């Protein structure tokens, strides 16, 4: 099932800023500062960042609950700055689900359709179809507070999707669910979004969720966009320490570029030369930081950098190591450790990088 006959719309933000007054100091500050975005029709984009980074404000500006102080928002090709939320072709799934407690499941989902004066017969069909999609068929007459968290979430999703909005907005929709349900629901949301081919903007502070669900991730910090890209790009090629640190575990190893060619460069870390692929834009003699994910380092009896093991701990899926490279602590994860040598605390080992999995700043 796709949204028949309905044109998919993209969202474009041009130099959007939003200023708030700090309630404590009374000073103005930028909640969102000069953010420009272009979200392709039909794509799934996540706004990711720590709390207070401006992601929810951005989303609420797209929905129309907040008005930007500068810039223009486009839905498709239409500027929508001056439109009230009820006149915008958006539908939002709220963190608290915001289901109408006085309506049953059917009436909740049909609410938007009634406002659009959809004929009763078509309304029944559309509600039935969407209920089927979110796997809630047969629950029409339940009151929403008789449902548990997961199904409530599905009703909220169905209620937003059934009106076939130009863009679907999600405001941390999974944060009230328990960990296991969160994982299954995010797969669900992704499946449904792809089935319908609907444009979706998704706000979360959970980086795993963002990676699992998105076509593109936009990482925000202090009101500005820190980086945008596919999950792979932001994970393996973070452009800043903030991004690297925010997405997953990371180690920063300081070094100096000793040689550079078009393909990559050689970095000297504590006097030990290491080759890093696909790192351009660096010149010999430049100070740099190597971004090392825990699983991108290999410990062996021989290798590039000698180090001392200070913690060794079996985690099931991997062996967790803390090693000292000089006076820098490096965290490593050695997956599937069975059958390989396990280093004990106090032993010396050699650290090498998995080719292509390391980045430089």
């Amino acid at each position, binding site marked *: 099932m796709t949204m028949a006959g309905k044109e998919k719309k993209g969202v474009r933000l041009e*130099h959007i*800023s*939003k*200023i708030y007054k700090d309630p404590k100091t009374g000073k103005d500050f930028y909640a969102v500062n*000069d953010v420009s975005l272009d979200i392709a029709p039909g794509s799934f984009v996540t706004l990711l960042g720590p709390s207070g980074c401006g992601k929810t404000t951005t989303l609420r500006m797209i*929905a*129309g*609950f*907040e*008005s*930007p*102080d*500068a810039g223009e928002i486009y839905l498709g090709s239409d500027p929508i*700055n*001056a*439109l*009230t*939320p*009820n*006149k*915008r072709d*958006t*539908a*939002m799934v*709220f*963190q*608290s689900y*915001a*289901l*109408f*407690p*006085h309506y049953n499941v059917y009436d909740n989902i049909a*609410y*938007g359709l009634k*406002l*659009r004066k959809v004929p009763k017969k078509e309304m029944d069909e559309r509600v039935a179809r969407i209920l089927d999609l979110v796997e809630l068929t047969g629950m029409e007459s339940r*009151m929403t*507070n*008789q449902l548990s968290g997961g199904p409530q979430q599905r009703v*909220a999703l169905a*209620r*937003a999707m059934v*009106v076939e909005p130009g863009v679907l907005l999600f405001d941390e929709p999974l944060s009230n669910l328990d960990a296991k349900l969160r994982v299954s629901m995010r797969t669900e949301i992704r499946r449904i979004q792809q089935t319908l081919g609907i444009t979706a903007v998704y706000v979360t502070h959970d980086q795993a969720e963002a990676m699992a669900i998105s076509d593109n991730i936009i990482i925000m910090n202090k009101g500005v966009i820190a980086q945008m890209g596919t999950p792979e790009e932001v994970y393996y090629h973070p452009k800043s320490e903030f991004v690297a640190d925010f997405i997953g575990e990371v180690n920063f190893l300081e070094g100096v570029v000793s040689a550079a060619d078009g393909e990559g460069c050689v970095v000297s870390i504590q006097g030990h030369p290491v080759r890093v692929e696909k790192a351009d834009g660096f010149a010999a003699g430049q100070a740099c930081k190597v971004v090392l994910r825990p699983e991108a380092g290999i410990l062996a009896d021989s290798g590039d950098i000698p180090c001392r093991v200070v913690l060794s701990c079996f985690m099931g899926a991997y062996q967790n190591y803390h090693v000292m490279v000089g006076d820098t602590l490096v965290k490593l994860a050695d997956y599937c450790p069975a059958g390989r040598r396990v280093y004990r605390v106090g032993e010396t080992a050699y650290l090498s990088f998995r080719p292509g999995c390391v980045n430089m700043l």
Partner: protein
Amino acid sequence: MPVKTRQSAALERKKFFADPVMIVTIALLIVLLALFILYPLAMLLLDSVYVRNTNLVPLESVQDRTAQIPYAEDGTIRILNNKGKEAAVSLDGIDGAFGYLFAKNGRVYKEGDELKAGNVYVKVQENHLTLDAFPRIFADYTFNRAFYNTLLLGMITGFGSVIIGLLFAYVDCYVNVRSRVTRKMFDVVSMLPVVSPPFVLSLSMILLFGRGGLITRELLGIYDSDVYGLGGIAIVQILTFFPVCYMMLKGLLKNIDPSMEEAARNMGASRMKVFTTVTLPLMLPGLGNAFLVTFIESVADFANPMMIGGDYDTLATTIYLRITGGSYDTNGAAAMAVVLLGITLVLFLIQKYYLEAKTAATLTGKASRARALIDDRSVRLPLVTACSLLSAFVIMMYVAIPFGALFKLWGRDYSLSLKWFNQLFRDDGFKAFTDSFVLSLIASPITALLSMIISYLVVKKRFRAKGFIEFVSMLAMAVPGTVLGVGFIRGFANGIFRTGVMQGIYGTGVILVIVFVVRSLPVGTRSGISALRQIDKSIEESAYDLGAGSAKVFVSVTLPLIKDSFLSGLVTTFVRSITAISAIILLVTPRYLLITCRINEFAEKGAYGVACAYATILIAIVYASIVVMNFCIKHFGTSKQVRIKESE
């Protein structure tokens, strides 16, 4: 890129104006609030400082320009003719301007009359602002005494109510009462005075403790007992208002975390020490709050001082007597009303903006778990006994009313008969009940809906006039009924701004309904606001987001979610209206008979049997409407859905 001009304000404005229903609603609300709350009060204020006098000025002094009147440059002066109309008359021909010339006694000189030298005057209209009325009334013995009486009564009632309220609240929250009957009795007592007509307790006080009182005379053999005066009013007011304190303080005590007190106990403090060093200091702002609320109520109370006050006049009754009595001193009565309003307003502002915030600040936490109730006999027995006795006393006061209506002649013949009820209905009692009933019934849906709309706008919307709407609708709480009544007389008797516009509503049922609405609006709005604050704002946002305009959101989402509050607003308004007297008694005309006014009339005449018959039926009506409300809330209210959840 630094932002030069902020467009958000402009965008918000655009969005706001895209919603015509809301704009019209807000505009309408502002007009209504301004017209029916602010305007009458403003007129009152104006009356107290604005003097319109007509002075007779000797013609000679006018002609030789020594009179203290404004002379115009073109040689004319503005004087009044015999019809009271003002016109400019030239000074040169003034001695021939018949119709404008008066004798000392006010007689008009007609064309052809001989002008007696030294007895020719012109009438000059004098309009000016002056604060003279205030020193005058403060020098006035009656006012002075009333002023002092009011404050003294307020103090006594305030302290008495807080102490008894605290006792009940403490017993309720801290002491293991054991007996369920006793507990039930506390509940009844706390509810009774809230729902009863305002003077019922005065009535039964007279019946039980007055000169012919059942208890004083029949049981104790006291023949000269005098309940009229300060003592009587104070007892009646305390019994009427302490339940309000009880409910307020109970809410506070419930919020004190028992572990704080346990920590004090654990460090070696006795129960008394815990109470004086932990509980009491935590409660202090709350006690102050309760005191002020009661004080305001007491000062504003009209019915009790009227009925049982004797010659102990308070401001409210003095103003009433000034207005209805012979001496029609507008300026003075207005000034008194302003003084009374000033007292309540200042206290209201302190209470609302200072103490309420402070109470909330000291007691923010929720009790982490249930408190271990005191089972100690030495604490339990005296406290529970005191509360039980008080409760029994209050209940006895209420029981006296129907018996007052059933006894043949109170004080003489205690045999049962229905003669008072018969007399009531033979009279125009039936009309009184229909009038009161119909007017209150009209007022209640209007108030309930208005207060829900106001709460919705105040809690959920952002717009500039919001503060105004919230403040004015709450302001009515601080305005004593008598003051409002005087304000309405001054404001509407001659139409708005004395122009005759809307004069038609004066003396009709419309103005009575408006007063009912104004008097109940703050209560409904407050309950609506607290109900709405508990609703997640994203529920409304999601309706808005799905395409509903403000009006649609309100009707399809907000209102159903605060249905309980709406229903209770309906009934509260009905109850308050049908039992109202203070403002109404000044505005009611013979076209409408209202129960409360009838009770007051009969009680004043000493016809206590009929008064009790009226009061009995009134209490029955009020009680029935509360039963209906509870039934409705149970079966149609929002809580039904919540209960489904609980039962799973």
